[in-house]
C-alpha cells in the first residue's frame, strides 16, 4: 500500500525538478504517528502516477495547494548528531 505524505512550500515551483531533492515531509497515514516529520532525499513529480507514494502540498500559511504530486522517498536524513540520539 502506498504512503501519503505532505510537504509545506512557498511556491509549487520548488517541487518542479528532475533531480533528487531534500525535503521535510510529514506522514498522513492513519495512526498515532500521523503528522510526524522526516527529512528525506527524494524525487518528486507532478505526474501523480510517476512514483509510488502520494504527496499533498500546503503553502506557508497552511493553505492546501490545488495540485497533487507523487514522491519516491530514497533515504532518510538524520538531522541530529549522535550525541542527541
Amino acid at each position, binding site marked *: 500500500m502506498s504512503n501519503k505524505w505532505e510537504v509545506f512550500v512557498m511556491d509549487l515551483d520548488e517541487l518542479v525538478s528532475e533531480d533528487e531533492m531534500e525535503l521535510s515531509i510529514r506522514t498522513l497515514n492513519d495512526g498515532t*504517528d500521523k503528522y510526524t516529520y522526516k527529512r528525506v532525499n527524494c524525487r518528486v513529480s507532478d505526474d501523480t502516477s510517476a512514483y509510488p507514494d502520494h504527496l499533498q502540498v500546503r503553502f506557508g500559511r497552511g493553505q492546501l495547494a490545488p495540485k497533487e504530486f507523487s514522491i519516491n522517498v530514497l533515504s532518510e536524513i538524520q538531522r541530529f*548528531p549522535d550525541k542527541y540520539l
Partner: protein
Amino acid sequence: MDNQDNNHVVRDYLAPASNREFIEALKKSGDCVQIDQEVDWDNEAGAIVRRCCELEAPSPYMTKIKDYPGFSFMGAPLSTYRRMAISLGMDPESTLPEISKEYLARTNSEPIESVTISKDKAPCKENILTGDDVDLCKLPIPLVHEGDGGRYVGTWHAVITKHPESGDVNWGMYRQMMYDGRTMSGAVFPFSDLGKTLSGYYLPRGEAMPFATAIGLSPLAAMAACAPSPIPEDQLTGMLAGKPVELVKCETNDLEVPANAEIILEGEIVPDVQVEEGPFGEYTGYRTSPRDFRVTFRVNCITYRNNATMTISNMGVPQDEGQLLRSFSLGLELEKLLRSQGIPITGVYMHPRSTHHMMIVGVKPTYAGIASQIAQLAFGSKLGPWFHMVMVVDDTIDIYNWDQVYHAFCTRVNPVRDIRVYDHSTGTPLYPHASPHERKWSMGSKVVFDCTWPVDWDPINEVPTLVSFDAVYPQAIKDKVLSNWESYGFDAV
C-alpha cells in the same frame, strides 16, 4: 482561611489547586461540559474547542480520545472571565473590575516560596518513560487547526528553564510543535526571557539547555506562566492561590516542575540543530508568523499522571485564552508599572478583542504631555513588544466601557495634534499588519491616541461639554425620570 506557612501568614483563597480540581469546580458552576462520546484528536477536538471559544460556551472536557484510551482533553480553560474568577476561587459572577482588583491585591502581597516534595508524593510521576520508551506519539497531542504545521504539544502549559548564572527560573508559555516522536520545535522570540538566555548564554557556548514542559497545570500556574510579571512564576502562582506551589525534581535534570501537573516532558534545547515550526493559528486570529527553522527541543523523558488530561488552548479569532488572559495580565502589569512611576492613572484595560494590541489608560490629565509620557513608559518597558497602540482617556471615561472609549476616541482626537507614531521599535513576528521583513526581525512601530482634552484649553469656555442623560440634567429631574420609567410604559432597565 489563614495559615502559618514558611514564616508568613498566608491566606488560602480556596482556588483550585490542580487542573483536576478546576474541572470539578467548573462542572459544579455549569462552566464545563463533559463529552463522553469518542472525539478524534485529529481536528475534531480542536474544532470543538474553537467553537466553544467563539460562542463563549463552557469548557469542553473530553473523556474518550480516539487512539488514546485512558487520556482526556480539556479545552478553553480560561477563555471567559467567569472561568478566570473560578480559577481565583472567586464568585463566577464577579465583574472584571472586581477580578482585576483582586489580582492586583494578591500580586502586590508578599511572595510565597514554593515547597519541594518527594517523588513518591508527586502525582506527575505515576508513569515514567525513559530511553527507547520515550515517544511523543504515545500522548494524545491534538492537531488543533487544519493546516497547522504539526500537532501542538504546548498550547496551555509552561516551558520551565533556569538561567545557569543568575539561577532565575522561568516558566513561559512558548508554543511547541511535535516534529517527531522525540523532537519538538517552538517559537521563542528574541526579546523573551528564554530567548535572552539562549542568545546570551547557551547558543554562543554551543551548549544544550535543559528544559521541562509541564502540561495540565493548575489554572493559576498557567495564568502565572502567561503573565508578564517580574515575579518568579512559581511564587506568583503561590501569591495568586494564597498557598505554596508543590514542586518535584525532574528525572533527568535539576529543574523542578509542578508536582500535580498532568504531563511533564523533560529534555534539552539543542544549540546546533533547528527544525521547522509552524504555521500555527495564533492569538491575533490569523496564521501570520512564517514557517521557519526554530528553537528545537529534544525530549528524553516523559512522566504523566494516571488518566492524564491534555489541556488545549485553541487560538484564533476572539475570544480565547490568548486574548482574554494575556490582555488581563498584561494590562494589569502595565497598570503596576504606571502607578510605580507616580502617573495619576485611574486604571488600565486591554480589551480581549484587541488581541492585547491596544492598551486603554484612564488618567487624570493634570499636566501637558501626559499621554505621551504614558506611551513612552509603556512602549519602553519590557512589556512593550507585545502591543503597539495606546489610547489615553481622561478620568470621566469608564475604561471598561468600549462605547464610551470609542466615543472619546472619535470625538476628541485631533488627527494632527493627538496621534503620535513611534517608528523603529520592537514588535513580534505575530503582528498581522507587519511586513514579512518586520516579522522576521521582530521590528515594530507604535502609536498613541491622546483622547484627553488639551490642558491649555479653558475648561469653561473652550472644552466642549458632554451631552448625556447623566451629564446634563439636574439630579431632581433624573430621579423623577428614573422613578417613573416603568410607569411611562418602558421596560425596567
